[in-house]
């Protein structure tokens, strides 16, 4: 059993989910069989309690089951309409007992397998609040809302990222639908503006806004002086001077990605890019057609020399609505470098994953400031290879072994949940807490050192 489990652990999360779902299906079937068996036992016992006369008249619908546990072909044998003697009933009961015992054994072994694969855990069993939850939507710790609690528990991390990916896919789909089929826009779509599921949106209304939501709203009203793309990018330039910003129209990025190889040595030498074909944002704005060009900008590249290159896609072009984001090594070349691409290096793959989650969080909770917040959060990664992990008691080093993947990684996590505004000039709520949190924004953690997560 140990060998099989080890082999299963090496499978990809989707396979694990499929296997777990299959096992749960088997478990459900076994439970149904057990219920049927219990019914049959009860009927048999009931019949034995009847008088022989009553036994004659009662139409017996006791089904003689076959000994197979999977199929449930019920054959109402007409012969059974005769009087069933107590002996026969006893035989039935005995046979049923054997079947039930088998079912229970199978169920027990299934349960052990599910426990081993992490689907059932002690904490879940301890939660006796009826959150096997077919009735109550559950709000998970990271704010996601799922209709069924056990679906969330199923594959642990894989399910969490699957929810994120589904949300990303849903958002992309609704955006595209809105763009290409505006005549199809109906009431349900308008509710999904923030990108959350419709269920959760209704829930939020029914439970009323939480205090943190209120705080966010008030704060956003105050700090979003940066409403236009130009403001956001200018603000980013001043906040993070080491970050180089490039803007592109959608098709220009493809040209840029393929020309990366030729300009690689130039960049490495630290020369300012003399390539006038792709000017930096500041140079663009200095030109006369700057603002008009900005209306067509669909791809933004953030480049920190020797640290990372990030690509953000805007949808629609010229808006402040980020669509997708990806991180790469500054030395990577190739046409796979775009906002939905994936780096060849594990470090940047993790950054891209985190960025996707952060993006979804910003879009879900503070959608009108999402681009600004995303950029602020991304600029925290300038210290990717220098900032030590914040988990002081256990870690506080740069390189650490990430247990699940077995890789040595720098602190790739930057918190995004409490990203406050930087300017607190005229805020009306107490800002002492916010000031403390603003330094938290660029704290770095290894994957396994993140506070509040397993």
């Amino acid at each position, binding site marked *: 059993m140990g060998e099989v489990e080890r082999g299963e652990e090496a499978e990809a999360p989707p396979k694990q989910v499929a296997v777990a779902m299959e096992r749960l299906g088997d478990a459900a079937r076994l439970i149904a069989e057990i219920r049927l068996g219990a019914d049959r036992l009860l009927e048999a016992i009931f019949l034995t309690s009847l008088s022989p006369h009553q036994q004659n008249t009662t139409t017996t619908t006791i089904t003689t089951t076959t000994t197979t546990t999977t199929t449930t072909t019920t054959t109402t044998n007409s012969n059974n309409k005769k009087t069933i003697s107590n002996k026969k009933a006893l035989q039935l009961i005995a046979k049923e007992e054997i079947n039930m015992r088998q079912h229970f054994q199978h169920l027990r072994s299934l349960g052990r397998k599910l426990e081993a694969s992490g689907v059932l855990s002690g904490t879940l069993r301890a939660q006796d609040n009826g959150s096997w939850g077919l009735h109550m939507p559950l709000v998970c710790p990271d704010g996601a809302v799922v209709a069924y609690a056990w679906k969330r528990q199923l594959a642990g991390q894989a399910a969490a990222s699957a929810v994120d990916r589904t949300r990303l896919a849903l958002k992309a789909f609704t955006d595209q639908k809105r763009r290409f089929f505006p005549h199809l826009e109906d009431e349900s779509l308008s509710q999904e503006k923030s990108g959350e599921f419709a269920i959760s949106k209704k829930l939020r209304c029914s439970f009323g806004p939480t205090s943190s939501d209120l705080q966010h709203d008030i704060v956003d009203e105050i700090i979003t002086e940066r409403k236009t793309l130009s403001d956001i990018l200018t603000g980013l330039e001043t906040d993070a001077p080491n970050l180089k910003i490039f803007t592109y129209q959608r098709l220009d990025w493809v040209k840029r990605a393929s020309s990366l190889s030729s300009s690689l040595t130039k960049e490495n*030498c630290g020369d300012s890019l003399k390539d006038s074909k792709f000017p930096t944002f500041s140079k663009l704005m200095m030109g006369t057609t700057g603002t008009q060009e900005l209306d067509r900008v669909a791809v933004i590249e953030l480049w920190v020399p020797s640290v990372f290159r990030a690509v953000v896609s805007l949808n629609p072009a010229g808006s402040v609505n980020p669509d997708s984001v990806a991180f790469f090594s500054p030395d990577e070349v190739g046409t796979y470098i775009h906002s939905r691409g994936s780096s060849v290096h594990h470090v940047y793959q993790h950054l891209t994953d985190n960025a996707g989650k952060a993006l979804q969080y910003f879009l879900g909770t503070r959608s009108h400031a999402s681009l600004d917040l995303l950029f602020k959060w991304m600029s925290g990664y300038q210290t990717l290879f220098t900032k030590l992990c914040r988990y002081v008691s256990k870690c506080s080093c740069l390189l650490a072994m990430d247990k699940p993947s077995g890789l040595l*990684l720098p602190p790739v996590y930057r918190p995004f949940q409490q990203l406050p505004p930087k300017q607190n000039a005229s805020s009306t709520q107490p800002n002492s807490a916010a000031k403390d949190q603003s330094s938290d924004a660029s704290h770095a953690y290894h994957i396994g050192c993140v506070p509040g997560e397993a």
Partner: protein
Amino acid sequence: MPVKWLLHWQPNAGTTINSQVLTEVSQCVEGINGIKGGRWKSTLSIYKAIARDLNAPLECARDFLGISFQEQPNKHYFILRGQRLVLEADSNIQSIMEKLQSYRTRISLNIEGFQYQLGDFLVKMGKVVITHSENLRGIVMEVEYLPISSLEKSRQIMEEFVDIWQELVSRKSLPGHFMHIEPNFSEYGLSDPYSFQHTAVQYVTVMIQLMASVRN
């Protein structure tokens, strides 16, 4: 080009290096989830000038090192230590030197072994042997961090990796330890972005150390 640090095995005073050490450190790499890859090989040669006329003073360099890497088969790198020069040449320079009878190979060393993938790190563990000989002269370890190509930016990460590595190896209680010597790249006119020239200079530094320890 990704940054690479070269470490070499420094045996304890009075002990000699043996192949058991190589096996043990290879096991260490596999212990931290290193995935064994293919073989790798570099060739290092020490050239000596062939003096035609014994009395006439030599105007050119008396001796220098040449090194070639498996990843760049069409290039050959020369290092002149005295003048702090590193030079990239085409690989057929060796046949030219032979034809011109200007320099001959005094010693030729092979550095060969296996490479291991550790996530974003690429580790090459190699033994140093004189060509056509089986005698183990030294152990060399190349550590490459693939995402970064800047020496300065990668310094902290590489230092931490070396620390982690040293700790792992020390648990095996072997007679010696790995050492990393950072050569003065700026003396050779090399800048921050990493290149094959940097590797060549690191190898030279390592070779000097190895020869010194062999002599002792």
